[in-house]
């Protein structure tokens, strides 16, 4: 009885989390314009999604922004973490605490303050994309930093010293010894950066050029409009993103559990 209660609760929460997105996925394959009566099977939403230049540009723009912001954030954050880790305690703590600001701050405040600094005070035009990219790097880099620091702490410092004793230059030791040991932190920081950038709405609204849209800003504006073709094409987009996320999560998980099994087999 108790077991059934638990199962029901779990299923209820899962239903709450997944029902909307799954129902929308089903309806994206019909020619219905509102959820309710299912009429015929149709792929026209997917055709609209991939052939409308406006939608295609918006999706590609979002991806390009996410990749470039994540790359910059990963480079800056990783180097920053290495630098902070080997600096004096004072400098390290200082960087740690500044790094924490965007993490705990509300995105509205971060976006608004960057807009004021770059656009209002420095007079940089939003059309240069500089405020937008800077804003997204501010959003992402702290999380890269946070995922690299623990890896540096776990590292055995004597391996690096041994490499130097054996004649490696500091740059080579860094590349061949330190980097491989923190790589899992760098990779998960990069993945985190991509998801943060893709999901962001607030920083983009305050810093983006008027003619450019990310998925979030586009969807928010589209829900206020009344264009049904665009509205239902976005259902198709939700379905596509849902499937991609599910595939990535599953494959990452399969790989992780395989690595886990290997580990266990060794032990």
């Amino acid at each position: 009885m108790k077991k059934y209660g638990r199962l029901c609760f779990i299923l209820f929460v899962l239903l709450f989390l997944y029902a909307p997105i799954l129902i929308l996925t089903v309806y994206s394959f019909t020619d219905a314009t509102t959820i309710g009566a299912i009429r015929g099977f149709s792929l026209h939403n997917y055709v609209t999604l991939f052939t409308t230049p406006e939608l295609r540009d918006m999706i590609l723009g979002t991806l390009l922004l996410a990749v470039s912001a994540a790359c910059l954030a990963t480079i800056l954050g990783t180097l920053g973490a290495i630098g902070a880790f080997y600096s004096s305690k004072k400098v390290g703590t200082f960087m740690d605490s500044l790094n924490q600001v965007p993490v705990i701050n509300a995105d509205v405040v971060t976006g608004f303050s960057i807009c004021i600094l770059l656009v209002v005070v420095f007079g940089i035009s939003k059309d240069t994309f500089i405020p937008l990219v800077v804003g997204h790097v501010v959003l992402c880099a702290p999380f890269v930093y946070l995922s690299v620091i623990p890896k540096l702490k776990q590292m055995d410092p004597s391996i690096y010293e041994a490499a130097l004793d054996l004649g490696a230059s500091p740059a080579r030791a860094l590349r061949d010894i330190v980097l491989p040991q923190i790589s899992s932190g760098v990779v998960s920081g990069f993945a985190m950066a991509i998801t943060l950038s893709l999901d962001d709405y607030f920083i983009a609204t305050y810093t983006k050029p008027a003619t450019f849209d990310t998925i979030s800003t586009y969807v928010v504006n589209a829900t206020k409009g009344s264009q049904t073709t665009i509205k239902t094409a976005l259902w198709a987009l939700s379905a596509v993103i849902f499937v991609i996320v599910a595939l990535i999560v599953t494959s990452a998980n399969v790989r992780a559990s395989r690595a886990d099994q290997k580990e266990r087999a060794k032990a």
Partner: protein
Amino acid sequence: MHALKISRKSLGIPYAVFLLLFIALPLVVLFYYAFTNGQGQFTISNLTGFFTDPNTLGTLCYSFGIALVTTLVCLLLAYPTAFILANSHLKQKHVLLLLFIMPMWINFSLRITALKEILTLIEGNLARYPFFNAVVGMTYDFLPFMILPIYNTLSRLDGSLIEAAKDLGANDTGAFLKVTLPLSVPGIISGVSMVFLPAMTNYVVLDMLYNSTYIMGSLIGSYFSAYNWHGGSMIALILLAIIILFTLLTHGMEEDNENPVGGALL
């Protein structure tokens, strides 16, 4: 050895400059704008204006109300979920956990659009239950962020403590209330801090669900649209003060400050 130490340290210089320029400086600018008027003169009227205007005070209360109810609802859903997951005897329970975390990676605006369609179908007219819809929307958006930290603390809990409590005569409820619950407080707190603050500021969820009442975030948005940098900065500063206060209150109780969300990503 000396030259080498400098070279390792100097790798951090670009990021240090970046932090100062784009994280510290914007805060300074925010302060400056919040306490000046359009002519660049010092003024506290932005601050006094906020605390004397019934509209803005109402907004503050409404934000607190939404954030409080959302946090409670999230907690009531997330704690049992995390508890059941952490105590299940399934071999692959992290796969089950992933199911609850996965929505985090789907763009929130698309998820809220989906929710909006469903709520419209159920309620007919969204405008009838604005507060309820806002809470449902925020819960839908933030629930995974509450489940994850609570699950992490519960799954790391030392099972022998509960056994010890039971050996000493506690029943299930007693052991839960006296051992499990107090030990999971750090997880609850980090979950609460990941839900409460966004719920005060994420005004897009309200906008998309046709709730036109302002919360704190919407005030910044409206000042932004009106090019009123001074008023907007003051709201941002007040929000920042609330966030800092909240963080200081919860800081001592949190278990891992070093690993907010990143650690559990993959």
